């Protein structure tokens, strides 16, 4: 009996994911205003249906939480297959691959911010600047010193992390929106500095940054019939997977728990003996590391970076992703990234009104779901505690 149910659940998961996958491909494929209308209608439909057929819906989604690993595994396979399937279906597949890679990079940055903001309550309005530090570090090291990507990418992450250390005093001494203002100012200063320092390119930026080259295999090579961007797709997918793993583990560990404590009530956390200042500093630095890595990936892939890439507007986009996605919720952040990065690209069809609709979308989303699409609820430790207890404790 149990085995049959399990099989059924597996089938359900696969079905739902494959259908969603192809719908997504279809969505990317079609280039007209109908796509937008269809997408909105579809979402509305799903929303209504989920209200009417509550039980059936829950039955459908239940396997996902039970067999999380399987669901993730299927998703992973689908993602790996994407670059192979998409050229068959979509005319502009290279472009969309580029956009998806870009989305992946933004997800990485957003997860970094999520750790700072969602998990620990630290507002960082300079995310784009740290992303830029990573990009410039990798770009300069690769361009001027010829160092390979395997070295520049981690170094870029470290550079961004250490740059975060510069703000140690404000982190220790200020709170809440004051920290926000400090990061805001810091972000502006960095961009303007980059604009004016000729050595790192000035407003022209850095051109012709070498692509990733792993042990002689240059990422400029096409994989068979697939466009060379596919290389970056897999690289970003792999690194993103690692990032998600890291943050998921952090979330479930005592680090995540105490960070949430600091977010919810800093004074009480201090009272419990948590060194809040030091913890906040570590969180800030770690979050920045991932932003820096994302920046390095971008630099190598596009080969061109300039100060306008890393302005306040981009920081705001990342903040919007984290807040709309639901703070401290990795899945929510991923969904919000797709919504806020892929959707506007589709909306190019209505070019003139794109940015306008984007603003309205932000407002509407926040009014209808003020705590984000997938708000964080209280943590559930029942099952893990049960496991712990069963093992006999230690």
């Amino acid at each position, binding site marked *: 009996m149990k085995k049959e149910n399990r099989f059924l659940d597996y089938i359900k998961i696969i079905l739902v994911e494959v259908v969603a996958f192809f719908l997504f491909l279809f969505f990317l494929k079609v280039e007209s205003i109908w796509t937008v209308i269809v997408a909105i209608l579809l979402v509305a439909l799903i929303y209504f249906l989920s209200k009417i057929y509550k039980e059936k819906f829950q039955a459908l989604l239940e396997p996902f939480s039970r067999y999380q690993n399987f669901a993730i595994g299927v998703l992973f396979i689908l993602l790996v297959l994407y670059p192979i399937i998409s050229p068959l279906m979509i005319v502009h597949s290279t472009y969309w691959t580029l956009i998806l890679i870009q989305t992946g990079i933004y997800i990485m940055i957003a997860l970094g911010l999520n750790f700072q903001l969602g998990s620990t309550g630290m507002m960082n309005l300079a995310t784009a600047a740290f992303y830029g530090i990573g990009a410039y570090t990798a770009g300069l090291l690769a361009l001027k010193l010829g160092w390979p990507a395997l070295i520049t990418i981690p170094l870029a992450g470290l550079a961004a992390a250490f740059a975060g250390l510069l703000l140690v005093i404000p982190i220790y001494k200020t*709170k809440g929106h004051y920290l926000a203002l400090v990061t805001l100012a810091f972000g502006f200063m960095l961009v303007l500095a980059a604009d004016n320092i000729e050595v790192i390119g000035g407003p022209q930026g850095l051109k012709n940054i070498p692509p990733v080259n792993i042990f002689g295999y240059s990422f400029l090579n096409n994989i068979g019939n697939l466009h060379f961007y596919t290389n970056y797709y897999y690289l970003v997918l792999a690194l993103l997977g690692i990032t998600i793993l890291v943050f998921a583990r952090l979330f479930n560990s005592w680090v995540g728990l105490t960070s949430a404590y600091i977010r919810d009530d800093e004074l009480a956390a201090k009272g419990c003996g948590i060194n809040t200042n030091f913890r906040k500093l570590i969180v800030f630095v770690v979050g920045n590391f991932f932003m820096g890595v994302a920046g390095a990936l971008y630099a190598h892939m596009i080969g061109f970076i300039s100060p306008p890439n890393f302005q306040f507007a981009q920081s*705001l986009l990342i903040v919007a992703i984290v807040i709309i996605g639901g703070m401290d919720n990795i899945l929510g952040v991923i969904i919000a990234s797709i919504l806020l990065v892929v959707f506007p690209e589709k909306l190019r069809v209505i070019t003139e009104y794109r940015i306008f609709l984007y603003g309205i979308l932000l407002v509407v989303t926040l009014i209808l779901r003020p705590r984000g699409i997938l708000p964080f609820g209280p943590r559930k430790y029942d099952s893990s505690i049960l496991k712990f207890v069963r093992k006999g404790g230690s």
Partner: protein
Amino acid sequence: MTSASIFLQIIFNGIMLGIQYSLIAVGFSLFFGVLDVINFAHGDIFMLGAFVSLILINVTGMLTASGAVYIFLLILVIILSMIIVGGLGVFFERIVVKPVSKGPTLMSLVATLGLGIAIREAVRLFYPRGSETKRFPELLVKLFPGKEAIEFKGVILRYDNLLILAVGVIVVILLAIYINKTKMGLTIRAVAQDAEAASMMGVNKNLIIDVTFFIGSALAALAGFMNGLYYNSIIFDMGAMAGIVGFSAAVIGGLGNIYGAIVGGFLFAMVESLSAALIPKGSEYMTVIAFAVVILFLVFRPSGILGERAYERV
């Protein structure tokens, strides 16, 4: 030109800019005080003030009038634009700001950000030829027929700028008096300090919030009008940076503190002006230097210059 006259010019610049920043910053402080929101659309309310004034100027046909009629129309345009934009401010508060104020402050930040983007783009899309810079007429020159400016120690002080300066200073002083000495001002401060307690004392919390947004938006509208007069050109994205600076100024002064917002606005403007003038290549860096000063201030006086009026509950 002597260095004294350059210095004087800088001071004058700083004050003109300072008035605009202060008027915007006050709005930020007020909104944060009564509703615990950071309203990033406020900069675009400033922009609306400029555009609404422009529309009114054209609609009333005041440019062809003269004499007493002209002065009457001028005052009418100013007051009407303040009322209209004040009303718009309340409208946005009702449909966007209040609903998101129930969540964390950061929610309101992002929501108002989206609102600001929507307002900005709406102007660009729906105002005829919206993406262009629009000419804002030199309205005050008509008031001084014949002579445009006086020379004072080598500095040209235009009469119209002096008038803007005078009006701005008066408004700021009036605002301070209003907040401090009138009953309404007292009520606003009460709601800002503790909304619950205030409503227990019989204050209609929602009415006060509406009033606050009206005042804040009207002030920003006035600043927009003054900006148009001073630079003679307005453009749909003029509110974006103004909002960020206004927010920074409000925070320097201590969010929620009206006096602090005024002080913060002038401080920011003076730092910008001074760095543009005194530091070589300063004009490229002036905003950055001002922000650096802001950071330094926050490090040494974390709750703002005049202190944030908030109590942290344990």
